[in-house]
């Protein structure tokens, strides 16, 4: 079937089921909230607005109040910025470093591949949370440290994953053709290999994002994280966990926020848009 020439095929012909759409929509919603959070919070995030604590949901405080009597809705809206932001930054760093190293290792092979793989395997062996604790003990906790630590925890995994994909792609004839043409490593990595591992890498990025959200909340649980008055969702759950026994909104909603983000991300990854081969429809 003839196609209008101005239409780029990449923009068309994707199949995307409802589960994936819902997932993406929620993830995007949180993304938007992360961006505009400060503009839509009903109360300042640190302000004690109620003498009562662990207050119930009410007209005034839609999601109740926390252990100090602060508005939960405002805190969750602001927390999105940290949870989403930190996780996104960390996962981006982890995946970009891991993927680039993985592709280089796959293309160069030999000693570089061997050495790097062993070293990162070794790092992988150290439990993430403990690694985080040691790092924070060593250099203190700041946003940068947090992001870099999380990135460091997840980089070896991303490396392993990207490397195994890239090794497969690297043996494909089109890479050989490019080599035979005289192309250098940067071109091979950027144009021949990367586009072909992009799909799985994005899916992997999503999975890692979920893990980072969870590890971040784990770190918050152990007392490391964002500076007050702000708090990421994990910290919100932690500081209000005393209210779990009454099922107070202060602990339920941040938990729901975490779950909604991670579940949606997983839904999206499991139902990524697939390109439709049948183009005649």
């Amino acid at each position: 079937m003839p196609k209008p020439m101005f239409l780029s095929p990449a923009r068309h012909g994707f199949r995307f089921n409802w589960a994936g759409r819902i997932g993406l929509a929620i993830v995007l919603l949180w993304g938007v909230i992360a961006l505009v959070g400060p503009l839509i919070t009903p109360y300042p995030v640190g302000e004690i607005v109620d003498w009562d604590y662990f207050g119930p949901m009410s007209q005034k405080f839609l999601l109740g109040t926390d252990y100090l009597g602060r508005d939960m809705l405002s805190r969750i809206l602001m927390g999105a910025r940290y949870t989403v932001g930190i996780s996104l930054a960390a996962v981006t760093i982890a995946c970009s470093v891991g993927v680039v190293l993985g592709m280089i290792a796959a293309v160069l092979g030999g000693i570089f591949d061997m050495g790097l793989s062993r070293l990162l395997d070794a790092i992988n062996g150290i439990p993430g949370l403990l690694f985080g604790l040691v790092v924070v003990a060593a250099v203190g906790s700041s946003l940068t440290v947090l992001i870099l630590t999380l990135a460091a925890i997840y980089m070896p995994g991303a490396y392993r994953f990207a490397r195994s994909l890239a090794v497969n792609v690297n043996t494909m004839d089109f890479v050989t053709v490019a080599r035979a043409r005289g192309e250098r490593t940067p071109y091979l990595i950027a144009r021949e290999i990367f586009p072909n591992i992009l799909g799985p890498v994005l899916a992997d990025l999503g999975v890692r994002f979920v893990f980072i959200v969870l590890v971040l909340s784990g770190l918050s649980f152990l007392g490391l994280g964002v500076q007050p008055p702000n708090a990421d969702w994990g910290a919100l759950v932690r500081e209000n966990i005393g209210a779990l026994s009454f099922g107070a909104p202060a602990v339920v909603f941040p938990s729901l926020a975490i779950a909604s983000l991670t579940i949606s991300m997983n839904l999206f990854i499991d139902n990524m848009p697939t390109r439709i081969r049948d183009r005649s429809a």
Partner: protein
Amino acid sequence: MPDASQPLVTVHDLHIGAVTDAGRQVEIIKGVSFDIRPGEFVALIGESGSGKTTIALSLMGYCRPGCSITGGTVTLDGRDVTAMTEAARAELRGTEVSYVPQSAAAAFNPSKRIMDQVVEITGIHRLMPRAEAEAKAVSLFRALALPQPETIGRRYPHQVSGGQLQRLAAAMALIGDPKLVIFDEPTTALDVTTQIEVLRAFKAVVQKGGVSGVYVSHDLAVVAQIADRIIVLKGGEIQEENTTPKILTEARHPYTKALLAAVDPVPHQPRSIAGLQPRPPILEAIGLHAGYGTFQNAEPAIKVLKNVNFRLERGRNLGVIGESGSGKSTLARAVSGILPPYRGAVLLDGHELDGDLKERRKEDLRRMQIVFQLADTALNPAQTVGSILARPLKFYHGLRGAARDARVDALLDMVHLPAALKYRLPRELSGGQKQRVNLARALAAEPELILCDEITSALDTVVAAAILKLLEELQSELNLSYMFISHDLSTVEAICDDVLVMYRGEVVEELPAARMSAEAAHPYSKLLISSVPQLDPGWLDSLDQDPELLAAFSRR
């Protein structure tokens, strides 16, 4: 024995539908009807996508995922398999009807011993005790002329050769004494010499057992040897149906005629090279050695190429022929520097090239291009045809913008593809189109020499013939030389001036293509040449090959 007058299989107005990933319902089999009588061997022939395998599988009541029988009936021995439950169909499979897959290498479970898999049918259907089943399997192995029939079953699939596996798959299909055996292109993946053995074994066993057969293939010459009747398919419909001799001699349908024509291509006309001033050969190899694995004493652990010498004159074509494992593809890699030879020299236009392509000059790389067998893997699936073609233009010639776009259009035109194709991704093209793009990319470099590594092997015969024609055209237009690597003698004949016959990494003989059959002196060359199937139904039976020679050279 069933009543010979009653058909064993009746396919009536069969429709098979598939749902595409866009959710669109398409009909891939459009009302096919035919019968198979007991003891009869029917061939389903057609190009890929013609629906031949789908029809064959439907005889077992099976459709691949995404497909379903949407109409018609398939009656097997009086029972309609389309109306059965899956459990009832499972009862049929292996006992009433069984299947010999296209690639036995893929169809054997790599982690189980062969015997376990061969006798599994008897276990599933509780046909006989294990010991009895094994004894029967061994007798089948023997009947199929398998080496060491007593012990071959103890091996794992990777420990036997492709030809043996294919025969073992036949044993697996026959162990349940089925009334119908479906052969799904069982020899396509095999070398010609092996193919002969396998075909013979099949024919012998099937004829002895009196079972019916369905033989799915795209190769008329092979089918001619084994089938009583041929059904020609295209686009999910029967084009022509007749007995084998009549199809071969009195084909009515144009598509059948095209298939017949493709089996016997027009021989290559050597181009006149007179009048040109003497120049060094465009490509010359002197004492080339290459191999894989870790190096010890400057020699690799696995040596593949041993002392290969040849000259390819400008404007001429050199064929390299040999069976799998002969080192012909390694030769292409060694020449192109992808696998640097550890000894010997490659001369391009009289000057020596560095063994490693990384050390070669860009200009030399440009002058010699390589085209791979599988266009599927040779084209980056993430890039559009346009950008695939544009890269060498930029890389070698520094072309940009409109000039480059114009050149891309010109290249597509050169390989007879519409310019609009440049917006497509490779997976949206047909096999033939992909191979044309593959070729166009090599042409983009404006080379003087193209190494073609089995570029027609994965294509349907008709499509392959068109590619060969294109190569000829391009040669005369662009003053190219080809080094043409193939396992298919007729293809080489169709395009080459000279032929190197390779065996176990060595050139055993160099022959002029036009007089190959006549001048071949080396026994291996002779064997190879005599093994190419002919369109004569009696060819296989009358073929007189020295079994010792066959055993010595086919080593599988």
